[in-house]
Structures are given as C-alpha cells and as structure tokens.
C-alpha cells in the first residue's frame, strides 16, 4: 500500500514539475536562459520516464529515459548553444506577447486541460488520468510558446517541450507499445530541425532566424 502511494506521489510530483518548468520557459527572454531551462525540462522528463519504467516494471522505458537524458538534456541544448553563438543571436529574444499575458494564457490552458482531461477520464486509473492532464498541459504550453515567439530557435524549443509532453503521455499510458520507437522517431525529427537551423546559416541564405524576416521570401510578396 505504502509502495503504491509513494509511486503515485513521485510520479505526480515529477509530472507536476514538468508543467512548472514549462511555465518557467514561457517568461525566459534570453536564449541562453531558455536553453538552460529546456535542459532542465528534459532532465525532469528523464526522471519521470525513469520512474515510470521502475514503477511499471517496464525495462524498455529506460531506453526512452536515457534518450531524454543524453539526447535532449545534453546534446541538443549544447548544440543549440553553439548555434546561437555562431549566429550571434544570444541577445534578448522578442516575444509577440508580453510575459504577463503569456503567463495568464498559460494558466488558462492548464486549467482547460485539467477540466477536459479530468472530466473525460473519470473512469481511468488516477495515475494515468493525472499524468495525461499534466501531459496535455505541457503540450498546450509548448504550442503557446511556439505562437508567442518569433525567433526560430525559441520556436524549436517550444516544439521540443511540446514533444516532451507527448512522451510523458505515452509513458503514462501503462503498457503502451512502440513508446521507444516513437521517442526515437521524435529524436530523429528534432535532430533534423536542429540541423535545419544550422543549414540555414551555413548556406548563408538567411541573415536572420527571425521568422518575420523569413516571410519576406514568400512567393507572392513582391
């Protein structure tokens, strides 16, 4: 019984922390800080997945945890660090919406996902349903970040934290097959994105990674 409660509480704590770190990302207005917070995000995810692997006695989930730890918490932030230094954009990032309204919107989204998920999953087991509610919050906060930022790098960070929310959901769904495959597929996707940012610069095609400047190249705007 004690074991059951403990496993529940720890899983709950970790998933909740992930939402908290998502909020921390929302108001970071410097790219360096944003990347550091993202690394923390991935670290919390790794801990959460690792805990699920332990609790569910599902050794394959350790693979996902290790991917989260090594790839997402170390390699990707380090690579992005280097890229933003090379691009010379480690100054302030512009947000389309200010920090205050963004946080309010974020709270609204979390409330929304709680209302939706907790009502919908009334019959599922409590761990899964709360995990799912947290996961949806992380996904929505990631989306919010993608729409409130103009900088390509911070949009990517938004996408990656969205993806962390998905991995949280997938590991929370007990016994879900293909989780490892899916997390590998996502890692490939992210690697592509990072290489993509890098290529933009390497090829000297863009002077900036500011999305608004990219719009200039649209086919129909003369």
């Amino acid at each position, binding site marked *: 019984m004690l074991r059951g409660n403990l496993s529940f509480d720890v899983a709950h704590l970790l998933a909740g922390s992930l939402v908290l770190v998502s909020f921390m990302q929302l108001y970071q207005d410097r790219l360096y800080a944003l990347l550091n917070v993202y690394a923390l995000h991935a670290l919390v995810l790794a801990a959460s997945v690792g805990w699920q692997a332990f609790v569910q006695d599902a050794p394959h989930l350790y693979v996902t945890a290790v991917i989260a730890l090594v790839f997402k918490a170390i390699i990707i932030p380090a690579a992005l660090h280097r890229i933003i230094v090379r691009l010379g954009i480690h100054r302030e990032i512009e947000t389309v919406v200010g920090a205050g309204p963004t946080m309010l919107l974020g709270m609204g989204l979390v409330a929304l996902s709680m209302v*939706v*998920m907790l*009502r*919908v*999953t*009334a*019959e*599922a087991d409590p761990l*899964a349903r709360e995990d*799912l509610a947290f*996961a*949806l919050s992380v*996904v929505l906060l990631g*989306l919010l970040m*993608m729409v409130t930022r103009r900088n*390509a790098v911070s*949009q990517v960070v938004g*996408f990656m934290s*969205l*993806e962390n929310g*998905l991995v949280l*959901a*997938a590991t929370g*769904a*007990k*016994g*879900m*097959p*293909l989780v490892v*495959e*899916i997390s590998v*597929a996502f890692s*490939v*996707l992210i690697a*592509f*994105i990072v290489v*993509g940012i890098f*290529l*933009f610069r390497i*090829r000297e*095609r*863009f002077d900036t990674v500011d999305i608004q400047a*990219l*719009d200039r*190249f*649209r*086919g*129909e705007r003369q």
Partner: protein
Amino acid sequence: MIDALAGVLVIPAAAAVLLAALPGYRLTARLNVLAALLTFVTASSLFVVHPESGTYLLVDDLNKVFIVLTTFVGFTTSVFSASYIGHEIEIGRLTPRFVRFYHAMYQVLMFAMNLALVANNIGLMWVAIEMATLTTVLMVGIYRTHEALEAAWKYFILGSVGIALALFGTILIYMAARPVIGEGVDAMVWSALMSRAAQFDPALLNLAFIFLLLGYGTKVGLAPLHAWLPDAHAEGPTPISAVLSGLLLNVALYALLRFKMLLALNPEAIAPGPLMVIMGLISCLFAAFMLYRRRDIKRMFAYSSIEHMGIIVFAFGMGGALANFAGLLHMTMHSLTKSAIFFAVGHIAQVKGTQKIADMGGLTVTNPVLGWGLVLGVVAIAGLPPLGIFMSEFLVVSSTFAREPWLAIILALGILVALGGLFLRLNTIAFGEPRGPTAKAEASYVPMFAHLALVFMAGIYMPAPLVKGFENVARLLG
C-alpha cells in the same frame, strides 16, 4: 515467399537503397520508373490474391483502393519525373548528387505512404505518416533557394505540430482501448480496435478524435491548418507537388477515415461527421476565394487542392452510402486530374522559366500540346461535364441536397466560385498574346494524357466492377 502485401513495402524500400547507391541520372531515373511500376503491379495483384492480415499489416477493401491509386499515380509521376529531372539537370538547377538523393527519397516516400496505408497498428501508421512528412520536407527544400528553404521550414514546423497532435490522439485511443482489450500491442491493432470499439469509453474517444482531426487534418490541408500547403507545393520540384496533392493528402485522409469508422462503431461517442462537414466546407469556400489572388501557377493549383480536399472531407463527413461513394470517386478523380495538371504545369514552368502567371501567356499557340493539356486538366478540375469530377461533384451536391439543402447550396457556391477563379487565370495562361520564351518542351506527355483519359472515361462510363467495388467500400465507411 513474399506475398503481395509485403511486396508493396519491400520493392520501394529495396529500390531506395539501390537508387541511393547508384550514380548517373539516366539509369536511376529508369530504375525509379521500373520500381514504381513493379510496386503498382504488385499492388494491383491484391485484387486477385488475398493475403492474410497480420498484427502489423492489414489489407481490406478500403485500403486496397488507396494502395492501388497511390502506386498508380506514383508510377505515372515517376515517368513524368524522369523527363522533368532531365531538364533540371540540363539547366543546372539540380546537381547529379541531389538527383541521386531525390530518387532515393522518392522511393522512401512511396514506402512510407504504402506503409501508412497497410499498417494494422495505429502507432505504426503514425510513424509512417511522420516518415512521409520528413521525406517530403527534404524534397521540398531540395532547390536550396530562399523560397524553397522557407517553404520547407514552414511545412516542417506546421507538419510537426500536426503530427504531434495526432500522436496525442493516438495515445488517447490506446488509453480508451486498454481497459477493454488489455495492455500491449493488441490495444493498438486496427482489427482488434474495430471489433471492440463499442465498449470503449466514449468520452476518451471523443477527445482523441478532436486531436486526430486537428493533427491529421493539418496534413490533409484543411483550413485553417493549411498554411504549409501552398508554399510546399510551389517551391519544391513539380513531381513532388503532384505526389503531395495527388497522394500524400489522401494518405492523411485515409487515417482520418479509419478513426471516423472507429468512432462510428461506438454508439455513445460523438458523431464525427458534422465536424468534418464544417471543416470541409470552410476549406472549400476559403480556398475558392483565395484562387482569385494567385500570381503563381503552382500556388494556384495548391489552393485548388485545398478546395477539393474540402469537398472530399465534406462528402465523407455527410456519410451514407451515396455521399461516401461520391467522396471516394471524387478523391480518385482529384488525384488523377491534379497530378495531370501538375505534369503539365511542370513542363510549362520549365519552358517559360518562371512560375509567375503574368509572365506566361498564349500557351495554346506556342506549345499546343502542353497548352491544350492544361486546358483539359483545368476543365476537368473545375468540374465541367462530361469529365469525372463533374460526376463526383454532382453526386456530392445532389446527395447533400436531398438531406441538407443549405449545406448543398454553400458547397455549390464554393465550387462555382472556384470555377470562376480557375478560368480567369486559365484565360491568361492558355490564350491571348504569347508571352515569355516559346521554346519547344521536351516532355513526356503520356502520363498527363493517360490520367486525363481515365478521368474522361470515368465521366462517361464507369465499369461495373469498379462501381461495385466503390459501393462496397462506401458501405464499409458507414
């Protein structure tokens, strides 16, 4: 002994490896055609031999139609692509290294689409659609220009968000299935899901469908999630525009239809139809009006694809044997016609050296075959009788009219507005003063006219077995 089902996967996969290793574009272009032809023949044999469905692969009447259509258009596009790419190499727009990459990616794309269609597992299907997205992203950006990179980036980000939402929906479906079917792979297998769907938690299914509709709907190009589509069509190589419009949109649609069937089996879940009807109508109307402001020929036809996907989703959303039949027919006709149009547009853009509508004119005089081919294609896509799209649009509108007259009127309005927009531009491109270079095109016209002939035939006479097959699938779709 490999059966036909595995064949449609193994052939493109093997061809991709081979094409990546071989140099020289003449040889590889032919090999590409050969592999696509083999895949098509193998896929057609599915009608004769009946392979067993397993835990991972599935074949039934629904996906047979999709697989055969996909492999057929894949084959004809590869024929077009051979002459298109030849020209691109001549003018130095593509280097041989990129062409090798292009051919390998073409087969990977075929593999991914076939995998998505035959997957008997919602997770596998998701992975396949992601793979198809990634390969097309790479191909859209292959010219390495500002525009191409921007289009690829936009497609990539929007596509990834769509894919991510679809995954969340997939997880929710698993959550709904787990208490009934039990943990593990079984709870993600289509056939198992379909047989037990009535016992799933309806609330979870509803929520899952919303995510799946938004996620896969992004890939179908439904407004307001369509923003990636015109850019991706306009900036990539034209064979890829043809495959995107003619096939990849269908594959995402197929995923949606599968989930719609799943929801339909649960009496307490929401009816997915009305949601699809609304999104379809919005897409159709929106795209129809957007047609008027287009200056780029490929972007124009990309918007026309959004319009037609809107009509198709609308038809499937209405449901019922007749509307489903119309939707299936329309989907087939649209794939054939739109790819034929892109075949013509590809060569036209090569002759004129531009995609700007303002810089091309009088095509029927300067390049009669291409010009009239395009005219025929546009007449077909606009839905004029006696061609196939007229038939299917007529069926969609008339079957809707009997049930929801107002919706039918809105839809008809969209179709008419689109017709006006298309003809306005066609007038500039095909008739009037010749503008721009008038060089002869070294084109293979066979794929284009083969498609148009099929569309024409479907408009006047549909063979009985085909009608029966479609009716059968329409019944399956509920």
